[in-house]
């Protein structure tokens, strides 16, 4: 079906492009110029003298260490999700009986629990467990709050595996372990990559749990570093925006290479 070019839509799309692009432009141009140049030229100016000093000085004031912490947090959260969600989704899709259905209901209910609203009891549990100001104390709740969406995505993918394939394996007398590793896992690769990207994004961008569950520099993650930087040196806009840009670079790289997995997954969450 061919449509005529839609002038109204074309105009609107360009306006939105400017609104989305402008802050990104300012961020990039500001982080490449000296503070004095920026204060003089204003946020819309293109850098006259290019400099990478903002990035290097950010890196030396602790962002290198925050990067490492965030990396550990992200890797651990992804690992937990990848270990826990596939067996769970397999059980939800294939196990018989009431228990499997009620477990699924529980996770659907979990979708509606906002992390913000239960942050105080989470803080209580983590400090009682002696994990306050410890990266592990951030990893556990972050991973837990990734589970509902990841389960929804992966069980949706597993549901698409036709029952003939299961029946064929049942005739061969395959155990549930064999079915899981030789049939279910290989056929859910797309869903797996989606939940990996999704949970990595949640962990990398997480702010609330690190904010209330950590305190010292040694367990600080990037988002918290940005917040601290803003409250302490908000006047140094180029330095601040360079830090913001640095925090985004890994995600943008993932977006370049795994855009499909991410976008498909998020689209699935919306439902039809």
């Amino acid at each position, binding site marked *: 079906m061919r449509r005529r070019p839609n002038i109204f839509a074309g105009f609107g799309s360009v306006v939105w492009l400017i609104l989305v692009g402008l802050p990104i432009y300012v961020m990039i141009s500001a982080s490449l110029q000296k503070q004095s140049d920026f204060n003089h030229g204003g946020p*819309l100016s293109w850098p006259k003298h290019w400099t990478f000093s903002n990035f290097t000085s950010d890196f030396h004031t602790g962002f290198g260490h925050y990067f490492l912490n965030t990396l550990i947090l992200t890797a651990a959260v992804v690992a937990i999700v990848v270990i826990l969600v596939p067996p769970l989704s397999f059980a939800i899709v294939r*196990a018989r009986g009431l228990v499997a259905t009620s477990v699924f209901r529980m996770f659907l209910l979990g979708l509606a629990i906002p992390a913000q609203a239960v942050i105080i009891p989470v803080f*209580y549990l983590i400090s009682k467990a002696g994990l306050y100001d410890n990266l592990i104390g951030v990893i556990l709740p972050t991973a837990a709050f990734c589970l509902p969406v990841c389960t929804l995505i992966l069980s949706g993918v597993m549901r698409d595996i036709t029952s003939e394939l299961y029946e064929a394996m049942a005739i061969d007398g*395959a155990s549930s372990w064999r079915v899981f590793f030789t049939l279910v896992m290989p056929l859910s690769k797309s869903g797996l990559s989606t939940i990996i990207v999704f949970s990595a994004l949640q962990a990398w961008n997480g*702010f*609330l749990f690190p904010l209330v569950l950590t305190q010292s520099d040694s367990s600080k993650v990037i988002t918290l570093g940005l917040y601290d930087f*803003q409250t302490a040196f908000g006047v140094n*806009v180029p330095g601040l925006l360079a830090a913001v840009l640095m925090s985004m670079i890994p995600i943008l790289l993932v977006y370049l290479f795994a855009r499909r997995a991410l976008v498909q997954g998020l*689209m699935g969450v*919306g439902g039809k």
Partner: protein
Amino acid sequence: MTATLTQSGPAQEATTSPRRPRRRSSGDRVGRPGVIWAAPAAIFFGLFALVPLVLVAVLSFTSWSGLGSPQWAGMANWTKLFHDPVMLKSLWLSVLLTLLGVVIQTPLSVLLGVWAAGYQKNRAVLSAIYFVPLLLSGTAISVLWRALLDPNFGLPSQLTWLFGNGNLFGHQATAIGVLVWVAAWQYTPLHTLIYQGAARSVPHVLYQAASIDGAGTIRQFWHITLPQLRNAMITSVILMVVGGLTTFDTVLILTQGGPGTDTTISAYYMYKQAFQGFDFGTGAAIGLLLVVVATIISLIVVRVSRYDEMRSVNEGI
């Protein structure tokens, strides 16, 4: 046409299911996972999401400063809250911000989503850029906009024709405007994505039939696309309501609830009470209130729209 439509999707499973019981008795359990497969994830999730849900209710009847153990306090936190003018104001502000979010983001993301659902090359490229805010942390976005809108170093100092005297954070109306705008910038891509997915799954026959009947693009949008987006719209609105009521990082970074308490919404007030005022009991009470309000609103949306009946938008085709 009817035949080809019903052949795909869950309908097929429904037609074959009556034959199942015959097979079940024999080797049907072979290769099926036991409930034990779900146990690790269920326990882990229960511990960090369901236990806190119960605990937030319990803690709301205690007094706890963050150190030592919570002491039973009865209704003290609740009576205090209901006589607290800041709390009442924060509830009103939460509702206002949520409503403004829904009213502004929904038309924007419906239009963008339907537009992005087209398969043209330029749309694909532009959508890839539009989705970038979706990837960024709320923290990064808020810090970025705080710097951009800074009265001294930001855009207002350069674009005085647009921003007037420029101190957007100094007045309630403009501070709310900033929060609503930043939320729209951050979340419109997510909702666009939801509508894009839904718009792509609208059956093409509908548009073909409509254009044979002589309906133009605008009439097709009103009478086919919009009704077909119904379920997506419910999902999207629920996400906006729950997200709006629990908005927190944006407020913390952009306005700190100010000027005065003019943008102190409930979620931020909860954080302030608990983690800055060390009154965790009152904080828990606000947290519980947020859970209850968000759940009630979601249930109302689901019930009013009869989403729970899982009526497909394709019924009767």
